[in-house]
């Protein structure tokens, strides 16, 4: 019964990554221009449709209810709790990336917030000015030199790339907490992360709704937002790709 939910999710994601990681590759010119590489668009769009249906009937109403009943400080606490449980995993990824200082920050955050921070429900580590740590195995693969691959939309999880989808699966098994001899609840980090996502969906309801439902093409909009933001997080600013003020004629406008 241990880890019953995890292999199921992992298997479905691996299956999908298998379908999508086939033979598509990106030319260096395509990569440099920062353009979108989406050879599986029709498959992705049907998964987007599924995700949208799931959001409409389940996630969106649930998140509204969640935000309505839970006072904001409690929503914050759930976020801190989920964040704290992910710190040991982020420490492992930091180590794999050779970022030892960042690994130390992750460990320090986990130790401080788990003790002084009431088992992670508060975030005193930030008050002690320990830098935030946000990484994953997708970033580890990036550091190791793997390219982004094709854009994929994963069921339930949402926008990703073939590289980051592998990261999502691997991260299901790299949290040291899962190997602890005694655990109060199985899959607790998975549930906590689910609750955190629900809280975020509720808190940023208007923004998410605008992208998913008000856009002329919610799929294309979500894809553009994800890829731009992900590239920025992994590679930082890319001044070479900045749009200059003379790229298009303004005559008549």
């Amino acid at each position: 019964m241990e880890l019953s939910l995890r292999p199921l999710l992992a298997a479905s994601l691996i299956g999908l990554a298998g379908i999508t990681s086939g033979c598509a590759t990106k030319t260096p010119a395509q990569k440099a221009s920062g353009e979108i590489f989406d050879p599986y668009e029709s498959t992705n769009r049907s998964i987007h449709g599924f995700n949208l249906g799931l959001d409409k009937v389940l996630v969106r109403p649930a998140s509204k209810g969640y935000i309505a009943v839970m006072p904001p400080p409690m929503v914050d606490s759930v976020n801190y709790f989920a964040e704290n449980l992910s710190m040991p995993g982020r420490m492992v990824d930091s180590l794999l990336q050779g970022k030892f200082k960042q690994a130390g920050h992750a460990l320090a955050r986990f130790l401080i917030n788990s003790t002084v921070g009431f088992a992670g429900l508060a975030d005193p580590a930030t008050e002690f000015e320990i830098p935030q740590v946000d990484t994953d195995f997708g970033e580890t693969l990036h550091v190791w030199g793997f390219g982004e691959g094709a854009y994929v939309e994963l069921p339930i999880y949402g926008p990703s790339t073939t590289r980051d989808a592998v990261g999502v699966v691997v991260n299901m098994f790299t949290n040291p907490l899962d190997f602890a001899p005694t655990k109060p609840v199985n899959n607790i980090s998975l549930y906590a992360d689910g609750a955190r996502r629900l809280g975020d969906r509720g808190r940023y309801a208007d923004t998410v709704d605008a992208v998913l439902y008000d856009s002329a093409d919610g799929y294309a909009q979500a894809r553009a937002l994800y890829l731009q933001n992900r590239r920025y997080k992994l590679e930082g600013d890319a001044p070479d790709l900045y749009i200059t003020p003379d790229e298009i004629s303004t005559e008549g406008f």
Partner: protein
Amino acid sequence: MTVSVSRRHLIGAAVAAAALPGTAFALNQTNARTMVTKLIADINKVIDSGKSETAMYRDFERIFRSYSDTSYIAAYAMGVDGRRASAAQKRAFTDAFTGYISRKYGQRFREFIGGRLEVDGVHQVKNFLEVRTTAYLRGESPFEVNFHVSDRTGKELFFNIYIEGVNMLLTERTEIGAMLDKRQGNIDKLIADLKTAS
């Protein structure tokens, strides 16, 4: 006091002129920073005013028109479809698009209530200036918001915003392209619908 201030200004101007050949045509960093600082103050004033939503969007539109290069933003958002637009369509599109973008970004700005933007610095990139700011919102880690400023029109106006790597021009080109596709490429229909879209 007056003497020392003016002398400092003179020295500053001389140093700047010596360091940057062709300063007369270069973008003015001080103007760009002042523009963004005023822009932020104006946005905050609207958010804190407690006006009705419609009144706020009117104010945001006024802000957009005075601080941004609306012609360039509209032309970029329309992309290659602009080539087949008539002069009248282009003008009408810029106008409708500016209203649409003010409502759309105005809605997002409302989430900034209780937050603040701080200017970190200005630097030259290619042929424009980047004004870097940090947004501090409640219950969130601070994030980067950068304004790209040019003096293409003769005065410093912003023509793009990057929020954590996501840029407005590209996002709007995606959106306008999708809207046109949905209307079988009919520009007049797009313009009509933009007048009420947000």
